[in-house]
């Protein structure tokens, strides 16, 4: 691994966003995030993260819609997305995986497992990239 990995978090729940940002910073990530889903796409394009943590249930623009937009945009295509959602139903998870997320965590999640999964995904990505 070279340098700090960049993580972008989109979560409309401000306290959840702040605490996760702090934790990931302490875990050695460079973290950016927004609680305003409509600003997410532009912020991601500008930040160019290695991985995205996306809340699925957000007012105005849901995580799944952002997922579609990220997949369609050349600048963001291929950035691994982990869905972090308060919804943990089979249908919700299935829908998210169909849209290309590579991981799914139901709130409240085990932080260590999240970081472990993020690292795995990032390592896999590094190995597959030229």
């Amino acid at each position, binding site marked *: 691994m070279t340098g700090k990995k960049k993580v972008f978090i989109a979560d409309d*729940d401000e*306290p*959840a966003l*702040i*605490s*996760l940002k*702090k*934790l990931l910073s*302490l875990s050695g990530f460079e973290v950016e995030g927004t609680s305003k889903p409509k600003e997410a796409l532009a912020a991601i394009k500008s930040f160019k993260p290695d991985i995205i943590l996306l809340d699925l*249930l*957000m*007012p*105005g623009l*849901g995580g799944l819609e952002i997922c579609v937009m990220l997949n369609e945009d050349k600048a963001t295509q291929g950035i691994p997305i982990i869905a972090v959602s*308060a*919804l*943990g139903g089979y249908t919700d998870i299935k829908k998210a995986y169909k849209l290309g997320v590579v991981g799914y965590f*139901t*709130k*409240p*999640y085990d*932080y260590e497992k999240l970081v472990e999964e993020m690292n795995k995904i990032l390592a896999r990505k590094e190995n597959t990239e030229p």
Partner: protein
Amino acid sequence: MFLLHRFEIVKESPYLMALVDAVALGIIINFGLYFLLSRPFNKIFRAMDKVGEEDFSVRLTLKQNDEIGQLAESFNNMISSLQKAEEEKIQRNQFIETVTQGIEEGLMLLDTNLKILWANKKVIESSGLKRDEVIGNYCYKVTHRRDDPCKAPQDICPISEVIKTGKPVTVLHTHFDKEGNKFYAEVSAYPVRDNKGAIVRFIHVSHNVTERIRMIEELKSAKAKIEEYSQTLEDKVEERTKELKATQAKLLQAGKMAAVGQLASGVAHELNNPLSTILNNAKLIKIIIAQGKDFNLGELKEDAEFIEESVSRCKKITQSLLDFSHVSTGQWQSVSVNEVIEKVLVLVEHDIKFKDIIIQKDLQGDLPRIKGDPQLLQEVFFNIIANASWAIEKKGDEKGGTITIKSQYHKDANSIVILISDTGIGIAKDNLDRLFEAFFTTKDVGEGTGLGLSIAYNIVKSHKGTIEVESQEHKGTTFKITLAVS
């Protein structure tokens, strides 16, 4: 000749002549008396004989101006009066006869030994006996076909009662007709007194009341049947009411649970987000402490505050959910309408937020409290707001929509008016009349039960309030709920 002869005899004897004169005078007087007295009197005696034979047509024709003539005239006047009186008597008797024989009642005159002295046609006909078999017979033999007088308790003898009380008596008897058929007779007995006031006769009036008794019996039977049916009906209604109430309570609870189900995703999100924050902040504190160096106390404090805040959020949502799903006790209490609305908003706001719906609240601060069931009232507002949210979503406007909730106190009517408006698809005119009908819904299967607004309507009604709706298709709907301040 006689005078000549007299002259000759007188010539011979003056004494003899005097005797002859006397005889001659006697004869003349005798003749005179016969014409003047005996003949008219004979006529009078004959006329009197005829009157004695009840021939009142006889009249004396004596053309005399003397006392006998006057006597004859008086006699004629007297006979005329008698004739008139007799005619009147006949007419009166005919009238009495017409009445007594023509009536449907059996009339008898009885002596103190219960023997029939007189009976009308009805009694004779009904008995099937001949008149002379009735007259002189005992009343109980003729009417009851029994050998002894009537006795209580089967048939009270009205005559004995009249003797006892001295007053007219009416009783119900069982009589028998000529064919031996039993029939019911209403028997009245009246005393007939002599000059000294002693009862010497009885008037016995009997009337066939079989038809009346039969009708009374039928009425009694019908009444009993109606009472029995009415009782059965009451029991059935009571039973059905109990069943309906139980079903209604179940339905109410089922409707509520369905609403809770609708809320599930929103509630899960609402709970899982703060839980996640709690967990992350706890982790954060642990990491910071574990690192043991350069930790910022202010930051730790902020993390702890996030935990507190998140716990409060969780508590608020679980409490609202508990309040909402709680089975109503039916107990009325002092209720703040605004508090009820706020509790409902805690439950729905997350769900609504995801539909890009803005909630605009305009709740009057100094609203008086009302008497009611807060659990039930929560359901009213929940159902209307949930409907408003659905209507906005259904409209499919990208910009979402607005739900406006206003509460106002109307001093003149001493009532609280709650207006809940949405900018949704609106309600078609044809559906407005059926809006509060149970199970009426325009929603697709799985979207709604058709119970929400019906339940809301019934709850408002049970609070002696009113609920009105105004709607314009594709523009929106406003529900107006009016609740009295008691």
